[in-house]
């Protein structure tokens, strides 16, 4: 049935023309240039301080023997978490047959690929000896959760890249054939990446089969990547981490921040590009809002398990840790994150008005910022409560307050991930063009395997 497509495309030239004009990548306007400029400056500043760190050692951070993991690790957890959006939209929604997901797929895969790349970079940033990175492979020990993490992150990166790339092939061919007045290298890039795509039924069949297989494959890997990340903590004997709830707790939080991330990106794309409200409609925001409420409620459930059960017992060192979170020096941050980053979004999104584009955009920003600091609260306070007394150590060792350089490097990684997404959107359609054209066809029928 797909053989008619090229005829359809030619026959309905106006529609094809409008959609491709709206969705094709465009050069940056002034706001785009400022955005890229600011991100580049933040990224380069982080890079500058990272070079210093390589030279002088991790001593430029506030991490010391007790708080031996800091915001690099919590930022790593954040990146891994938000990367799960790819599997949420591309796999879970695809397999559950949610047709409305089409314009969100590429955005979510872009976020997933960018954040998983930076998750890997951040873990190298945290290493005392990045020059020995290859030891992780040369001397790998399978009983270490870090080895599991390396394996599962690499697998997730490969599947995510494929889930990003395969659906892109028809669009690349479309751009190869239609985009005029672009630099020769760009033309060449589309040509090479399109792999000689000519929309024949055989190609389409292979592509659809592959996407289907990948969509199924990525779900266990996505659960794996964040479960293993939670095990970096849960396999230790530390108060606050020694929890069998950690896997599902992390995975549910990851889907929540992933949904928040894609909503924020949708809003920015919609307001930035002309006519995109036709593709990223209020309906999409409404549906994503409902999904976000569901995911947040699941996360709330795991939070109750994570904090209420140990708080009921108030056992030894665990009690000291929980008291610091509930009433102590971490209390302001803890309650802000729990209320503004979780409870308030749930309440607001229950109202249809809360799911309109602007309100839900602001709520999703709350969710993302809350999620970042939630990872801070998961990683840092535990290490401030060791089993042995922290006597005879300098005051600065007892309270971990990240240094400016440490913040800069962390901000640099966040800016870097946003830069990747931005540059992808500059060169590739952030909303699938060919798929959108096909679905806009009044005679369009869904492929059976989808």
């Amino acid at each position, binding site marked *: 049935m797909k053989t008619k497509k090229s005829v359809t495309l030619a026959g309905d030239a106006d529609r094809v023309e409008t959609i491709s004009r709206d969705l094709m990548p465009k050069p940056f306007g002034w706001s785009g240039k400022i955005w890229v400029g600011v991100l580049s400056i933040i990224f380069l500043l982080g890079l500058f301080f990272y070079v210093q760190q390589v030279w002088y050692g*991790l001593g430029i951070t506030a991490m010391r023997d007790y708080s031996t993991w800091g915001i690099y690790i919590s930022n790593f957890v954040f990146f891994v978490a938000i990367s799960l959006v790819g599997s949420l939209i591309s796999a879970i929604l695809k397999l559950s047959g949610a047709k409305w997901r089409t314009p969100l797929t590429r955005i979510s895969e872009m976020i997933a690929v960018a954040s998983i790349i930076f998750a890997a970079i951040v873990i190298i940033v945290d290493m005392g000896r990045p020059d020995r990175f290859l030891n992780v492979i040369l001397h790998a020990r399978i009983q270490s959760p870090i080895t599991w993490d390396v394996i599962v992150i690499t697998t997730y990166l490969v599947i995510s890249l494929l889930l990003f790339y395969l659906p892109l092939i028809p669009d690349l061919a479309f751009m190869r054939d239609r985009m005029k007045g672009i630099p020769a290298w760009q033309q060449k890039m589309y040509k090479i990446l399109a792999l000689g795509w000519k929309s024949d039924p055989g190609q389409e069949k292979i592509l659809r089969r592959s996407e289907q297989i990948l969509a199924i494959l990525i779900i266990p890997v996505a659960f794996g990547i964040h479960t293993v990340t939670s095990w970096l903590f849960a396999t230790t004997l530390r108060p606050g981490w020694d929890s069998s709830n950690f896997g599902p707790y992390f995975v549910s939080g990851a889907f929540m921040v992933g949904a928040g991330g894609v909503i924020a990106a949708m809003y920015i794309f919609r307001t930035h590009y002309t006519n995109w409200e036709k593709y990223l409609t209020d309906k999409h925001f409404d549906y994503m809002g409902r999904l976000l409420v569901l995911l947040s409620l699941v996360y709330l459930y795991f939070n109750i398990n994570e904090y209420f059960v140990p708080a009921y017992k108030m056992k030894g060192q665990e009690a000291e840790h929980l008291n610091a979170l509930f009433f102590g020096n971490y209390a302001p941050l803890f309650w802000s994150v729990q209320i503004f980053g979780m409870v308030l979004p749930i309440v607001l999104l229950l109202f249809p008005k809360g799911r309109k584009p602007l309100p839900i955009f602001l709520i999703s920003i709350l969710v993302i910022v809350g999620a970042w600091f939630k990872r801070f609260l998961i990683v840092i306070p535990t290490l401030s409560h060791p089993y042995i007394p922290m006597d005879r150590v300098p005051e600065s060792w007892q309270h971990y307050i990240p240094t400016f350089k440490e913040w800069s490097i962390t901000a640099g990684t966040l800016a870097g991930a946003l830069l990747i997404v931005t540059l992808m959107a500059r060169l590739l359609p952030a909303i699938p063009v060919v798929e959108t054209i096909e679905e806009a066809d009044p005679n369009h029928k869904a492929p059976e395997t989808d």
Partner: protein
Amino acid sequence: MTSTNQNNRRDFLKKGLGIAAVAGSVTALRAFQQDSVELTGETVQLLSPQGEIVEIDKAYLKPIPEVHISPDEAREGIPGRRFVMVIDLAQCKNLRKCHDACEKMHHCGPDNEFLKVLKMQATELATPFWQPTMCFHCDEPPCVKVCPVDATYKRSDGIVLIDTNRCIGCRFCMVACPYSARTFDWSEPQLSEEVKHQHYSPETSVPAKKGTVSKCDFCPDVVRKGEMPHCVTACPNGVFYFGDENEDAVSNGAETVRLSELLRDRGGYRFMEDMGTKPRVYYLPPVNRAFPFEDDEFTKNKGSKS
């Protein structure tokens, strides 16, 4: 061996060990035949391999060449041994000689303590006591379990070591250790030129390297020579007993006792047994103390909470 402690018996013991070590060294005696040296006029008495006391000029003495144990060789334990330590909390009065000797011999500095002496208190009504802590060389070491590159490992003689030539600085082992026994070189370690160029061995943990983890190593380099770890020899109060579980014997330098009897008769226990780590360091409870508890300048202002 330049410690200036007051204990004569201990001084005697140390000198005795020193003489035995020189006498046992073939290279020292070979000096008689080979080198022409300028005599100093000062003489020392030595025990020859034939069992005779001989008097020679100090100029003939040569330091025993260090047996260099390479990182690969350090992975094998000393055959037939299972090293173990017992710390008598009743005898500890926070003199910190152990700490100072450890710091001096491992060149680790105040920011990288291998050994700590902590003020501990079992419950509010009980009197506080001083507890030396270090790496417990656990038989189920959580640090070794999590290391992704086999940089830290457990040897057949019970000792847990770190190969800082392989360590990638991920610090997972530090997080995994519930006793906070491990320390990290966050910046370039401040070492003298001599120490910096010393041949590295995991058995000495010297020289330390930027961006890697280090910790108490049970001094296997001196244990190999039949001596005691530095903390044991430095303590004037006999707090530390060190020995071999296979021989069922431990010694604090002054007396050698049966390990099993000591632990049985004195109520020996291991720190945080419920962690399941099976430490190789035992404690004897702080009962019938040799000294009353006295706060020091660090803990005085901290109130009763420890």
